């Protein structure tokens, strides 16, 4: 009797029809010393918080790194990068936009994951293309540095009764010409990695009291000469002149 060769094939087909991917949502929230803050409020106010998220990855118990897929919604995220906008243009967010977006929508292969990682920044390949013809979410002129070439990966700022500060983070020291950048000596992409229990209820707190621990009265546009950049860069795990750091302390998974 001939072996019914199609039976194992049928099994494989049946298995692959089962959902092999899990959708998940990564939400972000602005904090000051562990307390939620917004553009309006009585004590510390947000003045800006917008950033790009890319390279969303999950790491399993073997240390294998699995790329999560971003859902291209044509507005806030394409398949490589998502824009998070946590300011609503009210109160202290004077140069902001009314639209907000607090989460990244993604899917990942089913698995047991121990850690989650993502990058605050736009991938090099998309970072130096012409912003005037880019598709969403890379079509936001407010998030682009036309004179340095590339996007501002992060806008962040706060103010309270004691002090205020804002920063714009992006790649500097780029070589070539605006439409033909070959490399950037200071890429300034922030890598975040957090431990994970499940893919449910994932919320990342962004603590501006850590980002701007001592920053005061001035601002940081990522320039190499800007001494006010040293402290916030260190908090983001970035090198700025003599200030060297490799682990960010600003983004943390909320319990």
């Amino acid at each position: 009797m001939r072996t019914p060769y199609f039976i194992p094939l049928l099994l494989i087909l049946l298995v692959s029809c089962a959902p092999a991917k899990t959708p998940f949502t990564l939400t972000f929230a602005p904090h000051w010393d562990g307390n939620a803050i917004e553009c309006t409020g009585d004590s510390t106010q947000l003045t800006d918080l917008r950033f790009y998220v890319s390279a969303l990855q999950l790491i399993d118990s073997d240390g294998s790194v699995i790329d999560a897929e971003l859902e291209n919604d044509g507005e806030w995220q394409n398949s490589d990068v998502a824009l998070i906008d946590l300011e609503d243009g009210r109160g202290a967010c004077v140069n902001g936009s009314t639209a907000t977006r607090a989460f990244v929508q993604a899917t990942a292969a089913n698995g047991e994951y121990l850690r989650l990682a993502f990058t605050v920044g736009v991938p090099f390949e998309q970072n130096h293309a012409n912003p005037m013809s880019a598709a969403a979410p890379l079509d936001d002129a407010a998030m682009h540095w036309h004179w340095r070439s590339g996007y501002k990966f992060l806008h962040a700022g706060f103010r309270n009764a004691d002090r205020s500060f804002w920063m714009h983070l992006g790649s500097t020291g780029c070589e070539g010409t605006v439409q033909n950048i070959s490399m950037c000596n200071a890429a300034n992409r922030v890598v975040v990695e957090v431990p994970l229990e499940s893919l449910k209820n994932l919320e990342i707190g962004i603590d501006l009291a850590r980002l701007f621990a001592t920053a005061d009265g001035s601002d940081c546009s990522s320039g190499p000469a800007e001494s006010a950049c040293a402290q916030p860069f260190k908090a983001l795990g970035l090198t700025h002149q003599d200030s060297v750091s490799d682990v960010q302390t600003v983004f943390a998974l909320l319990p």
Partner: protein
Amino acid sequence: MIKWLGAALGAALILAIMLLLQTPAEFDWSLPEDYPLPLIPADNPMSAAKVQLGRMLFYDTRLSGNETMSCATCHIQALAFTDGKPRSLGSTGATHPRGSMSLVNTAYASRLTWANPLLDKLEDQALTPLFGDNPVEMGLGGHEQRAAELLRSESSYSQLVGKAFPNDADPHSIINAVRAIAAFVRSIVSYDSAYDRYLSGDTTAMTSAAVRGMDLFFSERLECFHCHGGFNFTDSTTHANSRVDTIGFHNTGLYNVDENGAYPEANTGLYDMTGEPRDMGRFKAPTLRNIAVTAPYMHDGSLATLDAVIAHYQRGGRLIEAGGDAGDGRLSPFKSEFVGGFELTVSEKADLIAFLQSLTDQTVLTDSRWSDPSQ
């Protein structure tokens, strides 16, 4: 058979004529014979219609967020398209760290603005004054659709935009508005100064003082021409027949705030772009054409007169005796080898200034090709 051939030939002829009519005529630069043609980006060819469209946009305050300023606010024709201020003011009152640069002969600039090695095209440069937020200049961010709407809905624009961009299915876009402005700015060329007329054979065009000043300018004693050389009086020059792009950035010893050559933090020049220590305080040598009408001088307007500029170079660097920027620029380790200082008598200084004044081109300061079309 012959009838068919004739019909085919006739059709081909009609097609060829149609294609010829579609191709924009060669742009008339009206340049003197010995002047090189500018280098034009392949994706933004010049045409009279595009330049006219760009001229209208250049003078239109609706291209600023609060509709209070146009490109011309900081680039005034009578001042060779500068604004006469030490440092420019944006539409919302923010002060720019640097002064407005002349737009004359930017068509020949190998790099644009004061100290940016990345910016080689006006189409890219224009986006910073339009959309930049640190500082806010025109503040068009958040109003990205306004330029496209203007091109579509305003009749004076909609009549021109099709002629300016004949191959675009929908030419009404911010990209095309920027291209038109870039084409207009490229059209602002200066070739009619007393110095130019002198070079083309009119020996009476320059005063004898200016001729003596010219000899000083081009002398190894003063060394001015090493950075301000060539027909455009800057070493950052390119043109259609250039074999190489020359790009120069120089530290002239204007500051030395920490005795290690530092410039004030907001204005470190090329260093801000590269992070390379050797680039501290390096700025582009601007064209000297029309320099007599573009005071105050240097990237931050910190020298009020040509007399002060020459005194700075004569000393080989500026001494600031007191205040937050105090320091002796002459001792800067980053200073250009050409800024060594020189002896200069009072009458020689007057001659040198007379030469710089001979670079003023009344045509570019007054010609209606570049004036406000609504006036």
